[in-house]
């Protein structure tokens, strides 16, 4: 069994008066891919965003319980959110490049971290783009606007951008939902490579995708964690009836 990278304990989240997460306790192991599945609105994104405190940005959010990353409660007052987010990177559903060049996009994080040496930045940009398997496609147009890339390329560039700050964990919220099958296959291949070095948490609506890329799967329903375990087991012999019904497409 691998080490636990993220542990949540009785995590409850309210949007105003509406409960969106009901007492979620879950252990995410290091350097594996954990998938969150469940019908729309069940709280997958909400839960994912509690892991790097992106929900802090939304007014009227109330959170109780604990989220431990490497054993430290990230909702502790002493925790520096900025450092946390450097350690826990995020890739969004809709690719969201900055309206800057490809180079400036990827160099953004390192620059924020105070790296100004041009050579060093070039090095980081190159390795990050290589890790995201997009270097060959963009190496001759690094200084062109990132907006000119295709959707799939943009998404891989966003992954490169996240990698450039050297995170340990990467959260992905439906990273391939807006992409064609070929781009999706590339992203999945990429996830497979990345898990050698990173802990990956991915939200997906695509059952096959969850089955293909993940080691562990968590099934959410109406803000509750219904079942969590090895992907193979969840997809073949789930314990709960709801899980089985969802996976076989009988509801959701």
């Amino acid at each position, binding site marked *: 069994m691998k080490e636990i990278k993220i542990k949540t304990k009785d995590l409850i989240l309210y949007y105003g008066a509406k409960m969106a997460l009901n007492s979620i306790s879950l252990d995410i192991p290091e350097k594996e891919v954990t998938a969150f599945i469940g019908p729309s609105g069940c709280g997958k994104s909400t839960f994912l965003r509690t892991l790097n405190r992106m929900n802090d940005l939304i007014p009227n959010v109330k959170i109780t319980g604990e989220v431990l990353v490497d054993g430290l409660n990230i909702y502790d007052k002493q925790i520096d959110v900025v450092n946390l987010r450097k350690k826990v990177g995020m890739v969004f559903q809709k690719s*969201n490049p900055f309206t800057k060049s490809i180079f400036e996009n990827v160099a953004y994080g390192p620059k924020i971290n105070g790296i100004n040496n041009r050579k060093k930045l070039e090095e980081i940009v190159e390795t990050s783009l290589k890790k995201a398997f997009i270097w060959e496609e963009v190496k001759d147009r690094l200084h062109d606007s990132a907006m000119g890339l295709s959707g799939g390329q943009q998404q891989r560039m966003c992954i490169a951008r*996240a990698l450039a700050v050297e995170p340990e964990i990467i959260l992905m919220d439906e990273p391939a939902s807006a992409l064609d099958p070929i781009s999706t296959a590339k992203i999945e291949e990429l996830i497979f490579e990345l898990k050698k070095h990173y802990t990956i948490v991915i939200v997906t609506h695509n059952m096959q995708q969850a089955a293909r890329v993940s080691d562990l799967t968590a099934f959410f329903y109406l803000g509750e964690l219904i079942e969590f375990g090895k992907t193979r087991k969840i997809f073949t012999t789930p314990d709960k009836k709801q899980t089985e019904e969802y996976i076989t497409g009988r509801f959701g």
Partner: protein
Amino acid sequence: MSRKKAITGGLFVGLTAFSAFLIIAVIIILLVVIIIGGKDTFSWEFLTAFPEDGMMKGGIFPAIYGTALLVVIMSVAAVPFGTITAIYLTEYAHEKSILAQTIRFAVRTLATVPSIIFGLFGLGFFIKFVGSGMDDVFLGGQLKWGQPNILWASLTMALLTLPVVIVSVEEAIRTVPREMREASLALGATKWETIRRIVIPGSRSGIMTGTILAVSRGAGEVAPILFTGAAYYLATLPTSLSDQFMNLGYHIYIMATQSANVDQTLPIQFATTMVLLMLTFILNLTAVIIRSRLRRKAK
């Protein structure tokens, strides 16, 4: 349909068409009259020469120069201040906080205050209070800042145009997508870094539009500078912030009301009006173009 209804319907269509036509007609007549009246006087010489013969002849260069200087100093004051206010309102203040609502109320009110009131305020606040205060403190009561000059006129104008800047920049800031801010924050940027590196660059065209609209407004207004710095006639160009200046709008006003022979200066009045109109028209057109690009981008 009854005949009566058809007639009222027809009348209404006619009425709307007529009012639309009236507006266009007014603009066209206005332009034609000004161009006919000013075209013989308007020349390169007119733009670059000083007035002569008690302003009965010559050019309007000092007025153009003074107007340009006025809007530059005004922009230097209004644009950063307005931008910062807009950033505060959109990024930091809670929508419903008392402070934010007070600021918004103040901005709206500022936008509706008659411009002559700004002129009086400038006289009372900048000249009598700040300026005289500076003279007392720094110059032992010697009169330097406690009188009308281009600095006080520009600052007065800056107050008048501040709402324009704030509203334009706010609008532009709101077009910066949330996804981009989130991307920045998720990379470990602080809120301020996100504002500086993503939000402000993303609002550049809005800041531009605001500046141009403010400049075009500032170039055309006369009332605010009436008591705060505009001069009737100056033989030299202003060289210091404590100098007075000539101004296009004010020039038209005095030529039309104060000159020794109003009829004789008529061509100069028309030509000056032409210059002022062209200036504000070009500025407004540029602002409209930038703004429509911005709106398209926001969609």
